[in-house]
């Protein structure tokens, strides 16, 4: 199919629910603009779309799809692109602002992405675990991380199917250069569905509570080019350090101080090289598979390169 024909087809599809548009007519209008008047395709498309909108007495929001295209989550790499996603709502988070109706994480087989739904868009509520076709969402970027925003033109259709959610698995290899605050033996809020880490025995949400002990490490793994933040959950921490939660609790009890656990762990892991594999969540890599790295690769090849420079 020719390029013009493809665009004509898209436009035709957008209007097919509303008015009877002849695809030949769409194509002819596009061809005239592009070939005769040397208008760029996207501008031609906008112009032709507007023509039909006017003819049908519709607003841009009324037509399906807009200029959006079906996309996979892993393909999102530009802000302000209009796309259609078929995705599952993995998690809903508490909106921090009244202007946000819902915020959370969407997933499809290629990965996960944050979404925001504005209150003023007055869209139906998404449910955790639900699978939806989301047409006309717009991508956004903040500090290199992408998200999608649902807006008043977005069309939400719940699908009666389940989809596999893939991980954006990444592998980082480098020196563990820092262990951050909040690592070691920590206490979490015991309230149902709240796992917030307590600060001085207080949960941000539930106030003073009797916390439950947990082990975790927040570390920075750095390869000299990028610094990656890595989280080790209890299992990963136990495996990395050989220290179990029970042993850590005893250690803290003996010392009458929980920070001793973090100190021990720090001494054990900082300054050592690791290869870490796991899913990424926001700016964190969750350590699933951890390998301590021993001696270097054969330096011969580098030596040859250096000598030939």
């Amino acid at each position, binding site marked *: 199919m020719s390029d013009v024909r493809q665009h004509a087809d898209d436009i035709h599809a957008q209007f097919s629910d509303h008015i009877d548009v002849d695809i030949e007519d769409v194509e002819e209008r596009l061809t005239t603009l592009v070939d005769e008047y040397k208008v760029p395709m996207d501008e031609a498309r906008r112009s032709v779309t507007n023509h039909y909108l006017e003819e049908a007495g519709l607003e841009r929001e009324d037509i399906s799809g807009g200029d959006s295209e079906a996309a996979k989550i892993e393909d999102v790499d530009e802000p302000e692109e209009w796309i259609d996603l078929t995705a599952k709502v993995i998690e809903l988070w508490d909106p921090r602002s009244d202007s946000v109706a819902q915020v959370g994480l969407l997933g499809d087989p290629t990965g996960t992405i944050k979404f925001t739904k504005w209150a003023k868009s007055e869209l139906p509520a998404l449910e955790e675990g639900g699978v939806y076709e989301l047409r006309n969402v717009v991508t956004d970027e903040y500090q290199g991380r992408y998200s999608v925003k649902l807006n008043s033109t977005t069309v939400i259709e719940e699908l009666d199917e389940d989809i596999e959610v893939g991980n954006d698995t990444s592998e980082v290899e480098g020196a563990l250069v820092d262990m951050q605050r909040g690592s070691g033996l920590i206490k979490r809020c015991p309230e149902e569905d709240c796992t917030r880490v307590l600060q001085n025995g207080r949960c941000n949400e539930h106030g003073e509570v009797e916390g439950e002990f947990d082990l975790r490490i927040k570390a920075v793994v750095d390869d000299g080019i990028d*610094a990656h933040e890595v989280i080790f959950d209890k299992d990963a921490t136990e495996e990395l350090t050989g220290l179990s939660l029970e042993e850590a609790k005893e250690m803290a009890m003996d010392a009458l101080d929980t920070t001793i656990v973090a100190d021990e762990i*720090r001494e054990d892991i900082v300054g050592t090289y690791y290869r870490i594999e796991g899913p990424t969540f926001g700016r964190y890599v969750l350590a699933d598979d951890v390998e301590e790295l021993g001696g270097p690769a054969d330096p011969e090849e580098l030596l040859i390169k250096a000598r030939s420079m």
Partner: protein
Amino acid sequence: MSQSELTREVARRVFASEFNDSTYAFKESDDERAPNYALLPTGDRANRVFVSGTLTETEDVGEESEYWRGRVVDPTGTFFVYAGQYQPEAASVLRETEPPAYVSIVGKPRTYETDDGTINVSLRPESISVVDDETRDRWVVETAERTLDRIEAFEAWESEQEAPENASTAPTNEYAQMAREQYDSPVVNYRNDVIQALESLETVEKDDAEAPV
């Protein structure tokens, strides 16, 4: 959360010979809290470094309070590491470690001017860990690789400067440019240091025929 926490500075890999030549320090903005960078002669900036080597000597050089100096040797030279009361963990490692020992250090470059006007570069540690020989060897190879990458980028930029007719495709390398303005030492020196470092690893056989000039 401050901006610096959001964009954590990467720990550059740099051999002692190049580190000690990184005497030019600068900031990217006038903001008081803007990070300090040392300019590496191979054309990059370093707010933080990761080094590994042999701790050969420790000494408390403080007068009123403890101030520990450690000498950490790599195949190209010596890092001078200073830790006092504001780096208590690093200071205690220097106090308690019996040299010689392999160590890894995450830290920040600091410059100071001596009485005769020479500028010295030292390392202010964030952490010091005792490590094994495998970690130290891995660091040597990794640092060799990163250094060669910088030299390659420097030379690519340099050759574009010499052939301005290709200027439209010239790679921008502002730190290479800055290095050429600030330093006299040619980057080939650091290539020679890389070769020397790699040859020092036990697994590598020396190749006298192609020894550096």
